[in-house]
């Protein structure tokens, strides 16, 4: 079938959505002019180039390791008979929910010299190392970001027909040959989209790199906001340009992988691990212990010390159950709404790009993805800037939940974008051809063909945005309506002033909530 032109309404919707997503970028360019920033001049200074180089080095390393870890976990938990694979599949996305400022601190508290597991590590002969610098930042960010790869790849693997792989094996391919020749080309799109998110997240992260004392561009941005705003804005613009370059590069690389093959009733085959069962299990357990276990040791320790303290008549906790419930409720409400709206917002663009290869769609896609590299505080300030200049909308939007949800969607729409696009591309064109020959209209086809085939991808997209929104900090602090605390804002407030017991208790609630939601979204599908 030849490509048809996209319906004009779809194009207009796509452009409108892209304009909304471009608010922070346009704000940033405006602020560069208004503050007299000179980004080009900064680019010639070694004090910019060195942190920039460290940023890129870290982002490349984290992308590689997160991609390997994410694909390995996805393949093991979806396509093999790994013991407890359903359990591991629910657990694997949970690291997304750790706010990096407390997650990285928890790693340090558990693993570093004198930490909670230091004695154990010494006995194992691996003690005495200190998580810091490039290694520390790499490790922590890999463990926190691999779900960006895991979720889309696992969703893709679930919809992948086993027949081709079977044929390859019958024709004499080894398991690894079959993976390389059959499975890998099919997951390449999801893998590329996920890895891109890891890269962009890493260059925008501040919480983990600052605690690991690895001096990247975001540190320089953060310390210059007040003292030298022009420099902070210029450095942020450099970050955004870097993101656009990387997004463009990924697009041209992944162009060849658009033609995905899929049969309708696809029962994925399950490989028997055999003698690889135990090594595989050991690998998955190790990954879970490192990514969820290690930070949880410190968080539970903080929480339990606080609860014990009140029981023993020590200092009172500054939170009560009512406050925790209120914060948990706000967190759930805002992140669930943001997740659903984000997926709906990126769908038109996914159709434009995936089905019609539309230029406008391609540009909108790039805008949405690149925005992920902007620090959250800039997105928050940008939206405040725009709402104050939007006349009557300012009164309507300021201090409203709608604005908060909108800000979350702008921040995390990118997470839904990649997976949704891959989901659109997995719907074979010939189904549409057949259906329209049989007289099914566009809307009917959307519900009978697109939606069911895209379901796993869309649910993964919802999950990614949901878990990420739950831990979002700067927007929650700056844009939320007055008196609308979320778990993360409460954790931040407590933790910064060393109320670690309160922070620990609420972090436990946050992780428990995310595990339930992960179960709801990831597992109950089948």
């Amino acid at each position, binding site marked *: 079938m030849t490509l048809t032109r996209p319906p004009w309404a779809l194009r207009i919707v796509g452009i409108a959505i892209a304009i909304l997503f471009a608010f922070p970028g346009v704000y940033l360019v405006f602020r560069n002019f208004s503050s007299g920033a000179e980004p080009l001049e900064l680019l010639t200074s070694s004090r910019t180039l060195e942190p920039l180089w460290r940023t890129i080095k870290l982002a490349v390393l984290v992308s590689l390791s997160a991609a390997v870890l994410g694909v390995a976990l996805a393949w093991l938990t979806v396509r093999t008979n790994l013991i407890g694979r359903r359990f591991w599949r629910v657990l694997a996305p949970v690291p997304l929910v750790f706010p990096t400022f407390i997650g990285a601190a928890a790693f340090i508290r558990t693993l570093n*010299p*004198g930490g909670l597991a230091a004695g154990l590590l010494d006995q194992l002969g691996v003690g005495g190392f200190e998580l810091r610098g490039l290694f520390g930042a790499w490790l922590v960010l890999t463990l926190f970001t691999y779900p960006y790869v895991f979720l889309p790849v696992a969703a893709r693997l679930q919809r992948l027909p086993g027949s081709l792989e079977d044929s390859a094996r019958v024709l004499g391919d080894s398991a690894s040959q079959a993976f390389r020749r059959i499975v890998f080309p099919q997951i390449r799109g999801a893998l590329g989209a996920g890895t891109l998110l890891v890269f962009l997240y890493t260059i925008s992260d501040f919480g983990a790199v600052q605690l690991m004392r690895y001096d990247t561009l975001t*540190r320089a941005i953060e310390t210059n906001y007040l003292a030298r705003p022009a420099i902070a804005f210029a450095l942020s613009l450099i970050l955004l340009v870097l993101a656009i370059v990387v997004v463009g590069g990924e697009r041209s690389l992944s162009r060849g992988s658009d033609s995905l093959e899929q049969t309708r009733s696809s029962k994925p085959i399950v490989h028997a691990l055999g003698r690889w069962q135990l090594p595989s299990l050991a690998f998955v357990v190790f990954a879970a212990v490192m990514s969820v276990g290690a930070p949880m040791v410190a968080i539970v320790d903080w929480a339990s*010390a606080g609860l014990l303290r009140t029981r023993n008549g020590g200092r009172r906790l500054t939170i009560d159950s*009512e406050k925790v419930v209120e914060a948990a409720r706000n967190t*759930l409400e805002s992140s669930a709404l943001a997740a659903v709206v984000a997926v709906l917002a990126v769908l038109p663009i996914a159709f434009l790009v995936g089905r019609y290869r539309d230029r406008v769609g391609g540009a909108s896609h790039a805008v949405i993805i690149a925005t992920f590299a902007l620090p959250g505080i800039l997105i928050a300030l940008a939206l405040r800037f725009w709402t104050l200049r939007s006349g009557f909308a300012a009164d309507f939007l300021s201090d409203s939940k709608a604005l908060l949800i909108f800000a979350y969607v702008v921040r995390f729409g990118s997470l839904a974008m990649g997976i949704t696009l891959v989901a659109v591309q997995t719907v074979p064109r010939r189904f549409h051809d057949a259906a329209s020959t049989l007289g099914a209209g566009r809307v009917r086809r959307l519900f009978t063909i697109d939606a069911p085939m895209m379901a796993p991808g869309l649910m993964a997209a*919802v999950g990614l945005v949901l878990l990420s929104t739950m831990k979002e900090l700067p927007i929650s602090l700056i844009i939320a309506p*007055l008196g609308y605390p979320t778990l993360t804002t409460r954790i931040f407030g407590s933790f910064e002033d060393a109320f*670690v*017991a309160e922070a620990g208790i609420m972090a436990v609630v946050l992780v428990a909530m995310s595990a339930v939601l992960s179960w709801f979204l990831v597992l109950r599908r089948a």
Partner: protein
Amino acid sequence: MLSQTLHTRRLIRRLGSLTVLALFVASCATAEVPTIEGVAADIYPGTCAEVGDRELTVYSGRTENLIEPVLDAFACETGIEVAVRFADSTDLALLLAEEGDSTPADVYLSSSPGPVGFLEARNLLGEIDESALELVAAENRSASGSWVGFSGRKRVAVYNIDAIAEADLPTSVFDLTNETWRGRVALPATNGSFLDWFTVFRDQFGTDVATQWLNDMVANDAKYYPNNRSIVEAAGRGEIDIGLVNHYYNYQEAEAIGDDHRALNHDLGDDDIGSLLIITAATITSASENTGEANELVEYLLSEPVQRYLTDETLEYPLAAGVAPADPLPPLTALEIGSVDFDALGGGFEETTEIVDASGIANQ
């Protein structure tokens, strides 16, 4: 087709139920309680005044764990409705600058003077009434009336008790550039309170001396940490031997962790720059239309019950109402208060950041 339609239905139902769940929890608003409980009742034990139509919006860079009880007590006692946004002091200052005249905020509380200087330089601060300003000593308030200090945090050296014997402790920050301390000292070099401290350091000793000290520290392999809390925590584990921080984090950390926390505060010499008192400040925005209520809150922060609460509960130094510092706090000495012109901080901030950046400490 049948199974696909089922799939679609299931997807829609799933998304639908998620939305319904969100809307349901949103609708379960909790009822207002007419009395206050807990810590807030310690500040104001009486019955609450009737809620009128007076209201006040606060941006607080001080954490809600500390300030929420104070605001609850204030609202109860005065009947003024208080809306509050808690966030990082720096982020709130940026927000206020972005909002300008349209800001809903009447009062801004900052955990350090730097962001106050930033706002003052942009003419975003209004004048506080004389009656409120007079409640603190002249050195703890702005000459122009744009800010008033309401509590103090002292700079100290936090040290690991297993790594350093009491007799070997330094008596001045200038000792720390000696070979003895090579690779053992932590500096929160990009943290707001450190930058404020360094600006005062420059003001007192001249920029050359201060810059030389910082460069010597870097040459002496001082370690960079992003903030006070991470240094106190690292000292408690023995990851570093000693660090320059605000006094009160160590009390919080020891309270939370217990005996496993192996760190104590050490007061550097009485007249050493390392013992500076850094104030937390209250300001009223120039855009405020509720200046009466705003001044009431500022005076409330300086009242006896709140000053006592701040030192008893959070172990900060009280600045007003004749309240003495709580028990474990070493008394303040003469030089610590006074002689420091915090109004100079706003302007000096930019150069301080430049010097700290150039020293390369952040990559240590």
